[in-house]
């Protein structure tokens, strides 16, 4: 009977750790990053696309976060002890661009969104309108 208490204590500790992990996971899952626009469209493949990007994030509880942009993994903005934030910028893109939110004291990505690049006419040495003229 004497050995019973450490076992119960271990189970108690384990359940607590699991609870903490579950709470932390739930907290991370609650963080949502949203982006506008989702897609940037150009007339012809290879054109640069101009977008007014609006990023917004929300969390259940306050925390310290930083917003990054890829390619380049550039830090765009950081927030401290806050549960929502906004960021806007005028972007010129020639490939897909990702924005992601990380906790300020770690490199773990909490939420990620992308802006895809689309075009109407694919790259060609001949413009599509040429047959219209004679």
């Amino acid at each position: 009977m004497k050995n019973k208490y450490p076992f119960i204590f271990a189970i108690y500790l384990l359940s607590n750790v699991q609870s903490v992990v579950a709470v932390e996971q739930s907290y991370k899952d609650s963080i949502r990053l949203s982006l506008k626009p989702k897609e940037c469209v150009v007339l012809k493949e290879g054109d640069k696309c101009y977008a007014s990007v609006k990023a917004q994030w929300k969390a259940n509880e306050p925390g310290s976060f930083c917003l990054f942009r890829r390619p380049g993994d550039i830090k765009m903005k950081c927030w401290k002890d806050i549960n929502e934030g906004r960021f806007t910028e005028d972007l010129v893109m020639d490939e897909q661009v990702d924005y992601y939110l990380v906790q300020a004291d770690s490199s773990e990505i909490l939420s990620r969104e992308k802006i895809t690049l689309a075009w109407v006419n694919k790259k060609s040495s001949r413009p599509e309108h040429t047959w219209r003229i004679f």
Partner: protein
Amino acid sequence: MNYLHNKIIAFLLTAIFTTCTAFSFAEETQPEDKSQETDINSRDGYYLSIGTGLGSYESPLREEQNGLVLVINGRYQWKGFFAEMGIGSSGSFGPPSLTTLGYNFYGTEHWSFDALYAITDVAVEFNYKVDGKARQISALPMSGVGFRALGSWGNTTLQLVGLHSFNSEFRPDADVGYAALWLGHRWQIKNWSLNGLVGAKYRSSSLMNYQFGVTESEADKVVSAYEPASGVDYTAQIDLTYPIRKNLLFQIYSSHTQFSDETLHSPIIELARKWDNRPAKEQVFGVLVHYVF
């Protein structure tokens, strides 16, 4: 005059062939991967867009049109063989269609060459009355076989077309030639595209005569006989395009054509202008939305 026309046609066709040969040689001497170039220039596949919107069209050649516009552009190419169709294309939405069949026989990084059969114009029709009797002078669209060379450097394009007609309605001894030169450039302003296009169309005297001439047998007390010389028409077109989505385009365009004096002096055109109060210059304006498949 015919000597001059023959020289112009010969010069244009020679220019196209020379350009083709010169660039073929130049490309072959470069140590670049030819198979890669072929991939870049292959246009096998299809393109189809249907557009609608509002437009206005006024011309000395046809009746004024205003209102709803339908524009269809289609192209299909298989192993170099292609068919192109334009219904109500920009700059000429009044006329019904332009059709081309051909073979893209050579392409390099900057040049593309086609052998083709094309219908380049639309039917000209003039109806009037003499002593209470209905009369009509009409001509079928000009069609012919020839070559097209297209040069492309970034957003700048150059297109040369030379055609020789075999239309049986022409006099068998007539040299019926058509040639056109187009230069275009696209400027990107944010996500808008501003396209500028200037061009010149040459028609031989035989073609002019077929389209705008009046024979002695056709002449009456209203329309006098007329045999025009060759002529050159000049066109400038500008359009502003914005991609709303990857298959939806918004377009505003305007085109302006100055016809040759030989065309405007035709009694058919002079009378049509007088009766219908048509302008001397062709002007087209449109605001359209295109769906690109």
